[in-house]
């Protein structure tokens, strides 16, 4: 499959650059591995406790429910406003 082929090539690249520049590769490697394939692998352990799942700092604010954009002064809105002014004039 092409996806896995691509994945393995990125891993090889990461390993190669690892030899050249350790620090840089350390940062790149996880990212490259993350995109490899979509197989949900078996967990390395069978069971765990709730503490193992706690996000650091207890930050559980994951979702923004109020995301409406009220900004009318940025370029996007200014351009749109000009466009709307034309309505009815023609």
């Amino acid at each position, binding site marked *: *499959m092409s*996806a*896995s082929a691509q994945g393995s090539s990125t891993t090889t690249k990461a390993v190669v650059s690892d030899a050249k520049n350790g620090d840089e590769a350390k940062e790149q490697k*996880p*990212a490259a*591995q*993350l*995109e490899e394939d*979509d*197989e*949900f*692998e*078996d*967990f*390395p*352990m*069978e*069971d*765990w406790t709730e503490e*193992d*799942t*706690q*996000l*650091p700092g207890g*930050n559980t*604010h*994951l*979702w*923004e*429910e*109020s*995301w*409406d*954009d*009220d900004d*009318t002064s940025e*370029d*996007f*809105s*200014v*351009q*749109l*406003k*000009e*466009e*709307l*002014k*034309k*309505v*009815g004039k023609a």
Partner: protein
Amino acid sequence: MPGFGASMGMVETFLRETNEVLRERDGERLQDFLVIEPPFKPIYENLIAEVRQSYPQDDEGKDRKRLEERIQGFMTECEEIPSENGVVGSWSAMVQFLAEWLAFLRDLNVENLLDTYLRLSELLKKATNALGHSTKGIIILPTVIAYAKVFARLAIGLDKKPELIAHLVISTSEDGSQETLPEKAAEVLRKAFVSCLNDRNTTPTGIRDGKPDGKKVAIYKLANICLKVLFQCDKKESGEYIFANISNSSPPLSIYPASERVTYLYYLGRFHFMANHFYPAQIALQRAYDECPIHASCLKQRRLIVIYLIAANLILGRFPTPSLYGRPEAHGLRERFHPITRAIAKGDLESFRRLMDWKTEHAPWFLHYRIFEQIQNRCEVYVWRSIFRKVFLLSGDQGDTNRRAAPTIDLRKVLAAFHYFEKRAMMNEALAQQDAGPGRRHISFLFMDTTPPASAGYVDPDFDGLDIKPVVRFQDIIEMEAIASSLVLQGFLNGFISHSRQKFAITGAKKKGGALVAGFPRVWEVVRQKAQGQEDECPGWKRDGGAVGLGGTVIRLSGARGVGVGEW
């Protein structure tokens, strides 16, 4: 395997030992005993050599019969025996399985992947038959699970080598439909799963001392192996059977180990996502995410869960916060998702169209995870809502509560906004950027052809070669009314349309303390309210306290309606 007496043959020693293990009902030891993966220890090599010599392969199956007879002679544990509760039936399936195992080792050729797969399939079927014994079947359960894992790995591996299995793919099932190798493999695994699910030799609830009783202990292990095959080979829809059966007769998920819970909820969430049931998908995936360990060793699992969790939430009108994007498993996801949520919030249909174009930079990534079209189709409606909102903010009539005049939006202006975005979306991006609006356009823009390119229109391939100019069609005022009606129907806009005045009037502004709050309810709020009463409803997730079904009822998950899913 123990040491061997010099006078005894290897087969005989093996059978005596096996009988002893069965007598002790030691399932773990039996699994250690019945290896299938090379390299084998010398003792097994000797056993294989003896089987090859004494029971060579025979096309008519005589070797198998002779093996079974030999096995039967030693397996007192497989005979019918009287007990306090009546007669315990004979376990002939175990004898057949052991014969199959010896023949499997004898003929194993790992160079031939397909043959190994087919033989392992037979072996697993025989093991599953042996698992069916009401009282003794549980002894072979660890072996079945171990084989199932190897079998699944082989099936997935083979599915990626179509040249080896092409001739198997065209075979048809009983109802005439084509069945692929992974589906057949899943069918073999499913039988083991059903055997555990329907174990009657347990307490009525299937729970003993807070733990799954009997063979029910393996329900989710086997379900997850089966689902892995189906998902890896893109046959997710076949997972419905597993989820429906679990809904029907499994003990609650909460009494199973965390690894099984999280894996199962991941597959369940993805199944609902695939079926466009985004609310239940979000429920299952959120719990999978919450219960997944934050250890670095589980980063890959967290990554997969969070990708689908974000996609499901986007579709339900909830966007990731910076703290979610900041998580290690979400590395790089902001670059992919944030431009989309930004376009939705602003009502920037032009950017949305560009981001959701098949040719866009990130499209292959979204397509790889199969979340592209869902976001494209479902989230466009939120862009529409934002356009209405933006047009109201920029040019709406705020109304007059004293004169009881409702705030209104001119639908002709909404139409102008749609046209403005659609036309820009058809320009190349560099050209669109030069168009900074009337009076502010770059001088070069004036000399450019801004009519949409021919490629923006559609000509059916049937008309290929004929001189037909594609027509690029833009929305008209009637479509604005249709879009407004659709948004009202889905609860994303509050008000009514005045057809004669071509306006949309917002209702309830005075009561709710403002036209924006009254006219444009938050998407997530609307979705959540629709789901109320069935907020925890996630078909396929067996909760605590739910009555265990008595069998016979099959819940059709495909008929389950996704909450929060509009009619569009």
